[in-house]
């Protein structure tokens, strides 16, 4: 290439970068095209970001079969052209030098390369030893088709319900919270509410680092002169706190009492929304019995500002301020929460309590007023919650316990009647405990890394790791190191996919580049094992007509040999599976459109229903007349999935309950754990991105400055963090990007060389079975 051409080409790239930035700066400008008509020589295609549940749209630049550029998708309403650091380095995450490229099987203690055929055979034989004792541990990073195939293989074919996703560890409390309050899962509001609110409250949520692009939407509004009050309730000061008008620091677990206290004040002042409450709400006690409003008032009597201030550490003035916000009928309030509420031994109840507050104050279903539960992973909603890859669930909001739901599912799948086991399988923590006990013989782990991310690792993994592990992943991880079979996977734009984000938005993308070496799609891996089981004569892999249960058919209804890689790789199997799954989504009014509709769009929020004029129309706000097509005219708000079929949501009387482990003389500190901006969860991908690794190379422990003074600790000193379960030595950071409250230390969990989950507790919410990673008791010793 001549210097002249080089310069011209470089100019084009500079120009493209500048145009993209100006467009993102000016939301009203016509958005630039992203297709191949840009003069930068790249082919640009849309995809959702691979990382968090915000679900930003990315435009991916391909040149010579390689991913060489990314930009925020200006046409995607989630991010309007913006990206955070993780999204920015999406491309680099694919090109780590140690990508897994060959299937491997453990022989004589070593993982040795084998052919795909051999690996598939080993897995099939292990399953056939006892299909009912084989499980799948999946992920909120599974695509919709991946989760769907896993469900059909295991629940439809193997008669086992032992499937659960890592999403159990991050959003199970949100799911059970919504189902118990509204009768159906997933948020009613949407990100647009952030553009219309005048108050944002975060409940234990560091959105500046965990959902950075949503935080930018808020900062952008402020910069444009909108007056928005931001109240940050937390147990640790974070980057989000810097933008807060009010920071309210509370003793861990007392969020339950704080919310009840605000409700107490609304009732006492008479400032709750009487019309909303009388028309749309019912009251229940935790014994599930109906309550009168008077009984609910009596329940709240324990939560006076004075008492709750003493318990929580929040001042009476701040408790009054919160009540003022929810008492003011004109205020438009968005509540946001994520792991701080969900990873909680009473996570379901705290979810219920936040809904109580919004229902009691009528701050629901109006533009700018909504309780909004954020999700951590890119398809925790689309796959785990909607496809239902949970131990108790079936696709589309169904459950295995229901004979009606099992029959519907068996009919859709054409399974033999009775094929689906009515007994729920093991949820995540139980799954690994039962493996240790020998009640599960084997497990197939896809797109996740439990040997690093499970709580109380010393106990949960020590014996479980002696069982048979199949691990599909793209890099070596803590879990591939204990695996018996390692399968190299394709990731993100190396395959076709669909994700569903936090705001019910379904987003589709096409394969753009080849995966390295012999890496193959997880969907193919499962289809290949299913077919091998069929070929070996396993009856579960035959449908009621004797045909292959997981058959993939072309547009003419002719079965293709999708279990053969050369056939699979030339055919869009994702489209077939997505359109098959679609039929499940109507029952609970979570309707999705046909696959091709998403090909043309930059994401649509369900329910997506066809208008009279033939246009597929998304729904911004559920349960709201004029927005949600399932709300009947004249109803205003209709909770049409309420269990009692009275169209009402439930305000639950949920009392404060102390956590199972609190600091004492032997273990006087709280331990809180979490994520950092630079790394995605256990860091297996972002740790391969030099720039991110360079910016955040290893784990550390944040200590409050007063505790550090008292213990004569300075930045860089090493301390041993010791709990009843394990210990870990880490360098101290005293004034880092986060400052935990006095008496608390905070440790991020991304560093696989420093496993803080050897120290954490595996106690979980009794309703959602989600563990609490945010509080256990430790002592710290200078080393």
């Amino acid at each position, binding site marked *: 290439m001549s210097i002249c051409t080089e310069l011209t080409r470089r100019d084009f790239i500079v120009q493209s970068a500048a145009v993209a*930035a100006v467009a993102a700066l000016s939301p009203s400008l016509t958005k630039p095209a992203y297709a191949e008509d840009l003069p930068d020589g790249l082919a640009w295609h849309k995809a959702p970001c691979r990382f968090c549940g915000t679900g930003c749209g990315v435009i991916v630049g391909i040149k010579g079969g390689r991913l060489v550029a990314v930009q925020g998708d200006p046409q995607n309403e989630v991010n309007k*052209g*913006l990206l955070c*650091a993780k999204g920015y380095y999406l*491309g680099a995450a*694919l*090109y780590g030098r140690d990508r897994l490229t060959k299937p491997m099987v453990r022989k004589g203690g070593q993982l040795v390369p084998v052919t795909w055929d051999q690996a598939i055979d080993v897995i099939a034989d292990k399953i056939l030893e006892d299909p009912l004792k084989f499980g799948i541990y999946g992920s909120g990073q599974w695509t919709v088709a991946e989760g769907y195939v896993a469900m059909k293989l295991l629940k439809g074919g193997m008669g086992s319900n032992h499937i659960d996703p890592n999403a159990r560890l991050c959003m199970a409390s949100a799911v059970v919270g919504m189902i118990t309050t509204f009768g159906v899962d997933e948020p009613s509001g949407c990100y647009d509410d952030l553009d219309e609110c005048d108050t944002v409250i975060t409940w234990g949520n560091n959105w500046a680092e965990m959902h950075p692009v949503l935080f*930018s939407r808020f900062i952008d509004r402020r*910069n444009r002169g909108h007056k928005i009050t931001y109240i940050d309730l937390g147990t640790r000061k974070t980057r989000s706190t810097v933008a807060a008008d009010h920071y309210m620091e509370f003793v861990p677990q007392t969020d339950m009492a704080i919310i009840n206290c605000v409700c107490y004040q609304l009732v006492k002042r008479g400032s709750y929304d009487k019309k909303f409450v009388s028309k749309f709400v019912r009251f229940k006690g935790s014994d599930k019995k109906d309550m009168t409003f008077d009984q609910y008032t009596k329940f709240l009597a324990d939560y006076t500002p004075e008492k709750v201030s003493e318990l929580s550490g929040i001042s009476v003035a701040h408790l009054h301020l919160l009540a003022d916000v929810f008492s003011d009928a004109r205020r438009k309030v968005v509540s946001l929460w994520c792991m701080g509420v969900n990873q909680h031994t009473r996570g379901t109840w705290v979810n219920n309590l936040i809904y109580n507050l919004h229902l009691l104050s009528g701050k629901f279903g109006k533009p700018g007023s909504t309780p909004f539960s954020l999700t951590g992973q890119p398809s925790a909603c689309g796959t785990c919650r909607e496809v239902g890859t949970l131990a108790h669930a079936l696709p589309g909001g169904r459950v295995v316990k229901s004979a009606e739901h099992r029959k519907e599912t068996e009919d859709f799948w054409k399974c033999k009647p009775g094929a689906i086991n009515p007994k729920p399988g093991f949820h995540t923590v139980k799954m690994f405990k039962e493996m240790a006990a020998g009640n599960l013989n084997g497990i197939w782990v896809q797109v996740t890394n439990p040997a690093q991310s499970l709580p109380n690792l010393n106990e949960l993994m020590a014996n479980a790791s002696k069982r048979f592990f199949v691990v599909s992943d793209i890099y070596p991880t803590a879990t591939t190191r204990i695996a018996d079979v390692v399968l190299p996977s394709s990731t993100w734009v190396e395959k076709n996919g669909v994700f569903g984000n936090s705001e019910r938005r379904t987003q589709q993308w096409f394969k753009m580049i080849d995966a390295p070496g012999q890496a193959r799609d997880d969907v193919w891996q499962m289809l290949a094992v299913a077919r091998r089981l069929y070929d070996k004569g396993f009856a579960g892999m035959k449908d009621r007509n004797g045909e292959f249960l997981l058959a993939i058919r072309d547009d003419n209804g002719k079965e293709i040999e999708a279990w053969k890689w050369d056939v699979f790789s030339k055919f869009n199997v994702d489209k077939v599976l997505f359109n098959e799954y679609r039929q499940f989504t109507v029952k609970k009014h979570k309707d999705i459109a046909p696959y091709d509709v998403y090909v043309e769009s930059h994401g649509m929020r369900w329910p997506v229903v066809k208008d009279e004029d033939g246009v597929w129309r998304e729904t911004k706000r559920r349960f709201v007349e004029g927005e949600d097509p399932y709300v009947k005219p004249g109803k205003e708000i209709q909770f049409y999935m309420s269990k009692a079929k009275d169209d009402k949501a439930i305000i639950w009387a949920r009392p404060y309950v102390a956590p199972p482990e609190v600091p004492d003389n032997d273990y006087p500190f709280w331990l809180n754990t979490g994520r950092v901006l630079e790394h995605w969860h256990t860091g297996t991908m972002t740790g391969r991105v030099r*720039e991110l690794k360079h910016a955040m190379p290893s784990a550390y422990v944040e200590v409050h400055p007063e505790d550090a003074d008292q213990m004569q600790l300075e930045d860089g000193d090493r301390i041993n963090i010791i709990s009843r379960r394990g210990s870990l030595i880490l360098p101290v950071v005293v004034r880092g990007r986060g400052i935990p409250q006095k008496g608390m230390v905070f440790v991020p969990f991304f560093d696989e060389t420093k496993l803080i989950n050897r120290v954490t507790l595996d106690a979980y919410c009794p309703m959602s079975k989600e563990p609490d990673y945010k509080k256990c008791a430790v002592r710290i010793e200078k080393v």
Partner: protein
Amino acid sequence: MPISSLIVRSGEDTVDAVVQAIGQMPGASVVEVQGGAVAALTETDDKIQDKALWDRMEQLPGVVKVDLIYHNFEDVIREPVS
């Protein structure tokens, strides 16, 4: 050479100082300013320098947030594994 663009968000009272500071950073330039938001461009030798530049922008007094918009790294991409 990676080429990137980003938006640096500060208050309107600090934006002039932010624009000036970005202008003095080797490899960085300002494309447009709207209210408290600055569209900036970076051209650096490698991605570490690229990241270092926007880290510096994020640490400028008054800057609340840096959003990333466009990132072309075709000259510095590692060979894919085979």
